């Protein structure tokens, strides 16, 4: 399997955070090219590329851009979702740290395509190092006269996972409490300040310059048919060489874990794989031969999500894993809609009881019933992100859950380890983020 780098190209050899270095590898040429094109022509290239959003939902980016309401008399906004916070995800951080100008160029090209003068990058508050890098890069781009009539605002979040949900991101950006909005209206019609708004993930926007440079058709041909292009896979958990790997979509899960990742350390056994971040369905070792693209992973019953592959070895108690995952979602539930707010808390209570060995048989059924009553009934996807995986942990590892009831305690007897996978709940409480000097 070949590493194919588009968004991270040359990032290994050069310090691309420096404008000159980035320009030396052909940076900002796509911008110059795009600005000579008509905006609609750029959108056509994006449509032709069939680039699917890299934030998790995989919606074709060109189509999203073409949905933008026209002639409203209001400005059009571009928002870049850099609020990367799901357990297991760290690709956007790497892109922005190593190749900030690629994102900025992507912003400027996209802004040209959708005729927007205002770009907002909503950056995860805890990413202070990224903020500094991006701030310097933006300053350099500004000084070099690359911005044209576009203003890019770098906005730091305040520590809420929910603000990565696009409508909550918009609320937060408007200075309100970060809570999702009902849809319709969709952001393409009424987004930021009630104006047409395009929201895309960092990697999606960072891919745009390549598409403009080499053409949408070229891009559509690399990788498998419905999911072309590359994705930066964030490999974490119990592997020898965790890290970010930019691969063609359709690469094999086995190759990623064993060839690139070096397999499971210390001769332990692979127990489970979470392919796209903590919100995606857990996979089992017998699914190792799944290809990593949107459709193949979906056919395997899971989701590619944000391509955050978490490898779990045989030391992990799956009840504990489910508990930690749910604790995260309870902590991050915004509190707006009832099922998520109350359901996540109840799920945590039930899972804790199971883990402690105090649960009765009926309470395992109750847990599944509570999950079912959350699924598909919430205002945004967070409730589903919490409940969906729990159902799958139980389905795939039912025996282990059952043993917690039958044996009146955790069968690992305190020996289980979730090291390298999900952080314990006390680490969810983020330390106060240092204020950035003005």
């Amino acid at each position, binding site marked *: 399997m070949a590493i194919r780098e588009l968004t991270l190209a040359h990032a290994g050899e050069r310090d691309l955070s420096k404008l000159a270095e980035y320009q030396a590898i052909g940076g900002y040429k796509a911008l110059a090219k795009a600005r000579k094109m008509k905006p609609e022509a750029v959108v056509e290239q994006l449509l032709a590329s069939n680039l699917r959003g890299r934030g998790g939902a995989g919606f074709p980016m060109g189509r999203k851009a073409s949905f933008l309401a026209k002639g409203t008399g209001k400005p059009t906004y571009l928002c870049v979702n850099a609020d990367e916070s799901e357990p297991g995800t760290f690709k956007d951080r790497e892109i922005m740290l190593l190749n900030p100008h690629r994102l900025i160029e992507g912003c400027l090209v996209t802004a040209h395509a959708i005729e927007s003068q205002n770009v907002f990058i909503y950056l995860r508050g805890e990413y202070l190092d990224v903020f500094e890098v991006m701030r310097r890069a933006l300053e350099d781009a500004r000084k070099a006269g690359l911005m044209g009539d576009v203003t890019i605002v770098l906005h730091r979040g305040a520590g809420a996972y929910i603000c990565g949900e696009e409508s909550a991101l918009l609320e937060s950006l408007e200075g309100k409490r970060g809570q999702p909005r009902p849809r319709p209206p969709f952001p393409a019609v009424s987004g930021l300040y009630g104006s047409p708004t395009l929201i895309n993930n960092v990697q999606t926007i960072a891919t745009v310059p390549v598409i403009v440079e080499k053409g949408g058709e070229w891009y559509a041909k690399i990788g498998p048919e419905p999911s072309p292009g590359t994705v930066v896979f964030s490999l974490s958990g119990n592997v020898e060489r965790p890290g970010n790997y930019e691969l063609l979509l359709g690469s094999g899960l086995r190759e990623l874990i064993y060839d690139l990742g070096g397999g499971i350390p210390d001769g332990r056994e692979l127990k489970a794989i979470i392919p796209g971040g903590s919100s995606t369905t857990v996979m089992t070792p017998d699914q190792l031969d799944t290809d990593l693209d949107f459709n193949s992973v979906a056919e395997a019953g899971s989701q590619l999500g944000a391509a955050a592959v978490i490898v779990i070895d045989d030391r992990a108690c799956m009840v504990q894993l489910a508990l930690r995952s749910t604790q995260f979602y309870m902590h991050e539930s915004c509190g*707006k809609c*009832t099922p998520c*707010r109350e*359901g996540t808390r109840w799920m945590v209570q039930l899972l804790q009881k199971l883990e402690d060995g105090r649960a009765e048989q009926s309470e395992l059924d109750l847990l599944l019933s509570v999950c079912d009553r959350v699924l598909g*009934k919430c205002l945004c996807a967070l409730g589903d992100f919490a409940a969906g995986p729990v159902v799958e942990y139980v389905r795939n590892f039912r025996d282990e859950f059952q043993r917690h009831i039958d044996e009146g305690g955790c069968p690992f007897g305190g020996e289980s380890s979730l090291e390298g996978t999900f952080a314990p709940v006390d680490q969810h409480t983020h330390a106060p983020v240092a204020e950035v000097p003005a």
Partner: protein
Amino acid sequence: MSATELVTVTVDGREVHVPPGTGLVETALAAGVEIPVFCYEPRLGAAVGACRMCLCEIEGMPKLQAACTLTATNGMIVRTAQTSERAAEGQEATLEFILVNHPLDCPVCDKGGECPLQDLTFRWGPGNTRMTFPKRTFEKPIPISPAIALDRERCILCYRCTRFSESVAEDGQLVALNRGAESVIATFEDEPYLAPFSGNVIELCPVGALTSTQYRFEARPWEIQNVPTVCGLCPVGCNIQATTREGKVKRILSRNHPEVDEGWLCDKGRFAFTHLRARDRIADPLRRVRRRGFDVLSWDDALGEAAELLMQAQGRIVTALSGSETVEQAYALGRLMRAGLGAHTGVLPEETSPALDAFRLPLSAIRDAELEPVAERAPIVELWVKAARRQGAQVEQAGDALEGCRRLADKRNALGKSLRESERAILIWSGEEGAGGAHLAALAKELGFAGKPASGAFHLPCTPNGRGIADAWAAASDDEGPNPEPIGLLFVSGDEAAADPNVRALAERAERVIVNAMFQGLAVGWADLVLPGTSYLERDGTYVNLEGRLQRLRRAVIPPAPDELAWISKLAERFAVEVSPHASAVFAEVSERIYDGLPFGEVGEEAPLRTRSEAPAPQLPSEPAAEGKGLRLVRYRPLFSGPAVERVPELQFQRPAPEVELSPGDAGRRGIAPGETVTVTHNGTSLQLRARITKSLREGIVRIAAEHAGELGGTVEVAK
């Protein structure tokens, strides 16, 4: 609307035709299907879809949808919990989740018995609980203001209260803190919820989380009666229900009149009713006894004494009215004083001009206007103006009536020009210089509003029924005598008149004084005879509000003494004047003369607004603008003032501070910073007040609450 403009929606198999864009909850209702809701409240702006109670199945959509966030489109097929098992399961799930941490302390909860959560749980909810863990607990109750208590355990986080605070009252004081299951409602920075409309959140709360400190543990819903009436504390005339239990008013609720108040009340209207039980409330007639103060009199003796005083002063009687009398009461008093005792003088609360009848509009028209010069604020009018501003209307500060009217009438004035061009412009004005709206009517005529049905003008008078009283007083007799000097007898009708410094000044020139008041504090020291007064909650009758809308007042509780109409009737008998003690009969007489014979019974619970009528064309004020470089002083009567408010502990913290309001420009030129103590001078008299700088004032104008303005008037200077 013709059928072609309607869309067809099928709800639970029933076809219904509604205008496109109708909310799905309303569409279902039109089909006779109730979709239960908690967070949905169209008056709070766009739906938020938070509670998930309204989950429905919509054909073509895979997931259950929150009906409140959707609008009717043609061909839509909706299945509610009545016919869809999935929707029913979704609703039951929502109720189960809501109840998981709800304390279920219904037996001791004020809301119990009239609680949407209780009702919906009874109808749609699970019969049992599957929750075995300890429920979430919070400190409770938290007094978020002297009038409101917050119980966070009962709260179901529908965000109605915070949405009201943020997007209706725009006070931004109620907020949600924390996240997820730890979310709580709080006031910003834990400051008390100090805002003129705060009490509305109690009524908006669909559970017992926000309760009235006045009503807590006072009554159960099955032992109360709600009497539909009208608030008598300001000229807006909000429609209310007075909740009574065992002959006492226990609380005031709104009774949504969509053209008048949209279901909102100010805190004065909601909380001031406890003045009925004030400690110095007078229940018996009193006669002044030198040294000892007052002696209690029997009613017979009191009426005898009153008749004697009136007889002695015949021809030299002055009547000072409050503006809170009912139409019937003012008419009866007018009959007694003017028909029975010859020609006598009335000091009406303030001028009221019928000229505005030609520019009449419902208050709700303010919301739909596009251009509004506003001078002055009145409780509910302020909410309508805010709603207009949210819809994009241009709201301009217009100065005081005298100067503003002349300026806008000038053809060269830019704002005046826009007003002439607009089809939906509304003037909102008040102030003593407005000649009761006559100047404003002249301006409206000058601006060409007569031919524009959506353009109009409102004059905000000081008193709740000034217009009705003026008409009734005029209808009582044709004679009008000269002002007597000295005054033989001053008859003071009502508490506002008794508290008015101008009326007190009249009393200095009067030989004898009869005071009709609710509170002893207002009668002490100057009344020779005191006749107990009643409140608007204790009378039957009618009021005319600032729109010119005739509204029905109903007696909610029996007053501790006979009401005014009863003893006026008795007293009138002694002067051979026939006046009925019954409001209905008096109204019939008044109605014959001024309301086209409208029967009392048809005044209605949701009174309509009479159509515009032609009126004599008034004149624009002609006096030259005030000379000199000073600032024009606008004295205003603040919402939270007056004898009733002074007697309500919960409202004390809302009373205005001794402040002078200045525009930023005027303050800047004088080097005045917010909060500084400044000296306000006029004709040698001066007052020390705190400076408050507000963008809502035009330059050249300062505002001081009448109770803090002392003798100041006209043009003043403000200096550090």
